[in-house]
C-alpha cells in the first residue's frame, strides 16, 4: 500500500519523454494523461486500500491504436495494463510502479445487435447495463449482471469473468462470450472464437475470459444475448435465525428449483443498506433476508413461487413479501446491488471477501465468519449470492488505524482458510488480482501454477501485460520444471 505524493510523482516521471511523445502520436496528445492529479483516479480500483499511481494513462480509440501502444511499450520494456471502469474488487487494475494504463473507455460503441442470432458485437468500454438497456426493445438482455453493472464495462466483465445475482440461473460472463478480438501481450492482434458458438480447436475464448488482463486486452467482443423472461416474481423472506435462512437456501436448490437469483443479506448488511440512500425497505428486526427471484413463463411460475413459500414457511420466517410491481422489485434489488456502496457511510475502508463454498455448507461457513469477526473484534456484514454458495463478507475498517487494519487482514486470511477447509475456493467472481494473490498457493500447487504460467507465456511472453496479478511467480527458478525431472 502506497499513497504518498512522492510515489505518484516518481511514477509519472518514470516514462521516458520519447515514449510519451510516441504515445501521444498514436492516440493524440489529448488522450494521454500524465498529470499526477489526473492519474490519481487510475491509482486503484474499487479496492481502494491498494493504491499506486501509473506512469501515464492512455485512451486508445480502437484495436489498431491499442496494438500500436502495446508494441511501443513492449519495445521500451514498460509494463502496461488494461482498465475499464475500475469497479473491480481484487486490485486487478492496480498499476505496478511505472506502468501505463490502457483505458478502454473511448471504445464504447455497441457495433451491432443481431436479434435473430441473439448476439451483439461490442467494444470493451460499453457499460454493462447500457447494453441491456439498448437491447430492451428486442426483448433481449446480456445476462451477467454484476452489482456494479451501472458502471462496470463489458471489457472488465470479460477480464474478470464477472458474475452477479442472476448468474445462478444464467451462468457467469464466460457462458455468454462467443468471440473476441484481442491485442495480446506480445502486441499481435488475434480473433478468437466464433460468433456461431463452436470454434474448432482449443477454446481460447474460454481461456481468455477471466484472465484478468494477463493474456492481453480485449478490444471487441461478440456476446450471446438472452431473451428477457416473460414473467418475474421476487420474494423477500426475513428470518429471525440465520441458520434457518441458510437451510431454506439449501432446500430450495435441493428441491430441484433453480431460481433466477437467490441472495442473502444479514442483519449488519440490512442496517448498512437501510441507513443509506439505497434504503430498500428490508425488515430490520431479522437476522437475515433472502431475496428469491424466479423467472420464466407465466404458466407454472405461481406454482413455483408457492413451493418456495412452502419451503420457507417450514423454516419459521418472520416475514414473506412479494414485490407487487416492477417498482418494488427494482427497489429490493437496488438495496442488494448497492450494498457494497452502502458500507461507505459506516467506515472509510471495506475489505470484501469473495469466498465460495459448496451450498450445503453455507450456514456452517457463515457461523465461522461470525466467530472470526468476534475473535478479531470486527464489524462484518454479509450481502451475497447464497444460491451459488458465494459469500461476500464485508470487513469494515479505517486504514489509518494500523492495529485494526492488521486485524482485518488476519481475519480475511482466516475466512479464506475456513472456506478452503470446506472444499471452497478463494474467489467466486471478483478475481485474484493482487488482493487474493497471497492465497493462491493455498489453493494451487506449484505445478498447477506452472501450467498457468506456461499458458500465459504464449500470449504474454515477457509478462509486461498486467504483471503481478493472478499468478504468483515461482519461489525458486528451479520450480519452472515439471514432473519427474523437477526433482
Amino acid at each position, binding site marked *: 500500500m502506497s499513497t504518498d505524493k512522492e510515489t505518484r510523482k516518481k511514477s509519472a516521471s518514470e516514462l521516458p519523454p520519447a515514449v510519451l511523445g510516441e504515445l501521444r502520436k498514436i492516440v493524440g496528445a489529448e488522450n494521454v494523461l500524465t498529470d499526477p492529479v489526473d492519474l490519481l483516479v487510475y491509482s486503484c480500483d474499487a479496492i481502494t486500500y491498494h493504491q499506486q499511481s501509473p506512469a501515464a494513462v492512455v485512451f486508445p480509440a480502437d484495436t489498431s491504436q491499442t496494438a500500436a501502444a502495446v508494441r511501443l511499450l513492449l519495445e521500451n520494456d514498460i509494463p502496461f495494463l488494461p482498465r475499464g471502469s475500475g469497479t473491480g474488487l481484487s486490485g486487478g487494475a492496480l498499476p505496478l510502479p511505472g506502468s501505463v494504463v490502457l483505458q478502454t473507455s473511448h471504445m464504447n460503441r455497441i457495433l451491432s445487435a443481431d436479434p435473430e442470432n441473439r448476439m451483439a458485437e461490442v467494444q470493451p468500454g460499453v457499460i454493462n447495463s447500457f447494453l441491456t438497456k439498448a437491447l430492451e426493445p428486442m426483448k433481449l438482455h446480456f445476462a451477467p449482471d454484476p452489482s456494479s453493472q451501472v458502471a462496470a464495462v463489458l471489457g472488465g466483465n470479460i477480464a474478470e469473468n464477472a458474475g452477479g445475482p442472476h448468474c445462478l440461473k444464467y451462468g457467469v460472463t464466460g457462458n455468454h462470450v462467443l468471440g473476441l478480438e484481442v491485442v495480446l501481450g506480445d502486441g499481435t492482434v488475434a480473433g478468437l472464437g466464433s460468433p456461431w458458438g463452436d470454434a474448432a480447436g*482449443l477454446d481460447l475464448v474460454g481461456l481468455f475470459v477471466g484472465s484478468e488482463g494477463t493474456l492481453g486486452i480485449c478490444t471487441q467482443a461478440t456476446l450471446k444475448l438472452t431473451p428477457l423472461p416473460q414473467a418475474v416474481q421476487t420474494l423477500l423472506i426475513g428470518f429471525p435465525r440465520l441458520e434457518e435462512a441458510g437451510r431454506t437456501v439449501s432446500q430450495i436448490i435441493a428441491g430441484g428449483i433453480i431460481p433466477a437469483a437467490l441472495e442473502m443479506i444479514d442483519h449488519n448488511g440490512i442496517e448498512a443498506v437501510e441507513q443509506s440512500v439505497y434504503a430498500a425497505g428490508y425488515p430490520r428486526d431479522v437476522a437475515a433476508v433472502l431475496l428469491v427471484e424466479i423467472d420464466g413463463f407465466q404458466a407454472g411460475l405461481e406454482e413455483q413461487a408457492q413451493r418456495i413459500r412452502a419451503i420457507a414457511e417450514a423454516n419459521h420466517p418472520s416475514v414473506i413479501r412479494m414485490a407487487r410491481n416492477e417498482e418494488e422489485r427494482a427497489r429490493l434489488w437496488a438495496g442488494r446491488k448497492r450494498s457494497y456502496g452502502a458500507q461507505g457511510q459506516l467506515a472509510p475502508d471495506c475489505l470484501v471477501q469473495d469466498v465460495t463454498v459448496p451450498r450445503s455448507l453455507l450456514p456452517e461457513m457463515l457461523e465461522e465468519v461470525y466467530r472470526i469477526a468476534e475473535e478479531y473484534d470486527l464489524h462484518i456484514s454479509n450481502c451475497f449470492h447464497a444460491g451459488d454458495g458465494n459469500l461476500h463478507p464485508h470487513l469494515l475498517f479505517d486504514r489509518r488505524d494500523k492495529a485494526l487494519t492488521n486485524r482485518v487482514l488476519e481475519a480475511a486470511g482466516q475466512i479464506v482458510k475456513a472456506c478452503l477447509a470446506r472444499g471452497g475456493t478463494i474467489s467466486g467472481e471478483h478475481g485474484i488480482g493482487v488482493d487474493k494473490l497471497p492465497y493462491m498457493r493455498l489453493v494451487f500447487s506449484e505445478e498447477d501454477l506452472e501450467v498457468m504460467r506456461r499458458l500465459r507465456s504464449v500470449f504474454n511472453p515477457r509478462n509486461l501485460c498486467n504483471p503481478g496479478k493472478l499468478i504468483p511467480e515461482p519461489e525458486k527458478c528451479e520450480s519452472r520444471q515439471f514432473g519427474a*525431472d523437477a526433482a
Partner: protein
Amino acid sequence: MSAPGTPQTQEALSAVRIDGRTIGSWRQPAGEAELAALLAEANGRGQSVIPMGGRSHLDWGNPPRSSDIGLSLAGMDQVVSCRPDDMLLTVQAGCTLHRIQEELAAHRQFLPVDPEAGPESTIGGLVAVNAYGPMRLQHGRLRDHILGIRVVTAEGARTKCGGQVVKNVSGYDLSKFYAGSLGWLGVFTEFHLKTAPLAEYACSGRIRQSDFSALQRIGQQILDRGLAPRSQVIAPGRVLEATDPAGVPEEALELAVQFAGHPESVAWQCRQVSELAGPLAGEAIRWVEESAGDPFWQRISRFGFDSRSPDDVLLKVIAPFSLTADLLRECRAFSERSGRPFTWLCYAGCNLLWVLFPRRAAEDGSWAELASWLETLRRRLRTRRAELILARAPRELKELFEVWGVEGRPLELMLQIKKQLDPKSILNPGRYVGRQ
C-alpha cells in the same frame, strides 16, 4: 504398471485401430500416481501416448503420427462422491456416462448432456471431444457442466484446475479450456461435475413438411418468441423415423422440438408452437409425452454414428441457422455431381448442421473429388466466419483434407500452447489442429 486386463480384454484391445494404425503396447494404470509415472517415463523416452476412454470417438481428429502406447483409463472408473444437496458429482475419468446418469437418477438429477454415447463411453473421453447432443440448445456442452478437473501433464505433473464450487475465478478457467482438447494437452483423471434436476415433465412435437424454409421459419419463430425448447432439430423424415423409414416419402422433412420443465410451462409452450405452426404446417403436430432417456432423442444423438463404417464421412458445419438452406443446396449439387448420396440433421438454434455421406456400396477409394469440394466449401464458409470440421472420415480423406481447419493466429497460439504443455509432443501426436 498394471497389465491390461479387466474390464478390457486383450483381444478387444489388440483389435483397436486408429485410422488403420495399431497400438504398440497397452497400459491401464490403476490410479493417478501410476499414470503420472507412466507419462513421465513415456515422455523421457519420447514415446507417443494415445489416451482412451470407451473408444467411441477414436476416429475423431487427423490420423495419428505414431501410437506407441495405448492408455486405457478403464482402471480409473469410480464415482468418487455424489453430493446431491450441492448438485455435485465427483468421478474418475474412466467412469461411464451411463453409470453417472444412473447414479444421479437415484437423486432425481442428471448430467444435462445427451451426446452419442454407448454403454462404454467414459466421461474423460466425452470431455476430450466436448460432447453434446440435441439438448445442447438448453443445456450447452459438456464444458458448461465441469467445475474442476484433475489433469496429469505430458511430463507427468499431477495438476488440477477449478474446484467443487459452482462459481470460481481462482486462476485461469482451465476446465472450459481443456474440454474439447482431444487428450492433446494432458490426461484427465478426475472431474467435479455440476448436475441438474431432472425435468418434471417433457413433451416433444413433430411437424412434417416438404418445404425446408417453412420449417426453418417455424424453428426461428419458436426462438424469436422467447420459447425455451430443450432440443430442436430439422431433418429428413427418414432420418427421424425409427420404425419404417423407407415408408416415409423421400422429400418429407420434419421439425422435432422438445420442451422440458414445469408441466404448466411445457404445456403452454407446446400450445404456442401449435398456434404458430398451424397456418404453416402441412400436417397436424404430433405431440408425445416423454420420459427420461426417450429413444427418439437418443436416435438423434446417434446421427452419423449409427454405422461404424470407417468409410462414412460426417461433416460438422458451424454456421448461422439462416445459412442452412444454402448449405443444403450446395450439398445437393455436389451429391448429384458426384453420385455420392447424403443425408443431414440440423440442430436448429445451435448454428450446427451435420452432413453425412454414408459409405457407398461400391466405395472406390477415390476421395480427391470430395476433398476438393470440402476445401471450396470451407473457404466459402470462412467468409461468413463459419467453420467446417470433418467429424468422421476414412484416413484417405483425412490425409487429403485437414480435419479441423484452424489457421492463422489462433493456430499459431494453439501450437505454442502445445509446445508449452507437451514439449516433446507425446500426447496424440498428429491428431489435433495443424496435424500436430
